[in-house]
């Protein structure tokens, strides 16, 4: 909030009414800056590398659903609706992406090289494979930070 505006994480955690907690986050200004920067780079990159914006929002929605975070789900659902393409993860490509989302979120240790090869085989570029992996990992990060911020908010 070097510019005084709430970021995505403030909004998701509902910190508008909790100025103390929003201010606490600003004690870690570099974290706040590069967290919002990551959100921008992951969902609205200048070059999407073959992983489309609707695919990104739909994959994030799936992570939020797996982690049972209704606020995150609503966030990504709303962004997907705004793009006007509700079911971008159809067909073999979409199924392959969703399988990756599920495994990386719930059982990351079960990953194998065959999973990466399957994504490449489904037409994803190396750029898109890395973007998808960053996205899944980022939403997993988001859910943990949100849980911690809600805890601090509720315990204040």
């Amino acid at each position, binding site marked *: 909030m070097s510019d005084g505006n709430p970021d995505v994480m403030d909004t998701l955690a509902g910190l508008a009414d909790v100025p103390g907690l929003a201010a606490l986050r600003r004690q870690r200004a570099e974290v706040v800056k590069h967290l919002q*920067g990551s959100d921008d780079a992951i969902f609205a*990159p200048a070059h999407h590398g073959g992983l489309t914006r609707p695919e990104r929002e739909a994959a994030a929605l799936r992570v939020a659903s797996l982690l049972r975070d209704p606020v995150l789900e609503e966030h990504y659902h709303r962004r997907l609706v705004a793009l006007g393409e509700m079911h971008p993860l159809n067909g073999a490509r979409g199924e392959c992406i969703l399988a990756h989302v599920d495994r990386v979120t719930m059982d990351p240790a079960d*990953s194998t*090289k065959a999973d990466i090869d399957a994504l490449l085989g489904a037409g994803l570029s190396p750029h898109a494979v890395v973007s998808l992996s960053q996205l899944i990992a980022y939403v997993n990060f988001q859910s943990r*930070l949100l849980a911690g911020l809600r805890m601090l908010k509720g315990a204040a």
Partner: protein
Amino acid sequence: MTRVMRDFTQGELDWQPWLAPVDLDAATDAQRTALKITPSNRTVGAYSLVLAHDPEALEQRSPLYNAIMFGAKGLPRAERELSVVMASRINGCAYCASVHAKRFTELTKAPDVMARIQADGADAPLDPRQKAIVDYAAKLTRDPAAITPADAAPLRAQGLSGLEILDLTHAVAMFAWANRLMQTLGKATTPAREGNPL
């Protein structure tokens, strides 16, 4: 004991990518910027070269990681390392668990702590402050939806400030991210040597 731990702390772990890394000689300007390549610095590991396929994400993630793990004041660095060892063990990221166990022991000069965690995981006998940190890290890693305001109480009882709890949360969350990249874009290859904590 000290010798054994020193042996593992010097153990070089390797990481083999499952996706061809970016060829540094063919890297775009955006990739070189994200990798912080300069004429005097061309030392980049395979992991970073894989992430460089998406330079925009990498360029943000690297400083975010550094701010979370090395930011001044707040939660002592060793306790950040402790929390991410627990997160990495639960996620099953052998590479991350080993690297950060080593850092913890370097910072604390207390190899017995990682020895106990190696033996008993999240149930390891620890001092009360370390126990509170490890318990929170484990719960947040396993199931963030299960965290409630009551989970702050054990941390507060051990004297953690709001900033320290935020730092702890950032660290655990960062490894929900870092572990997943490491585990799904390649494979850790761990040398089977005596004293290796894995």
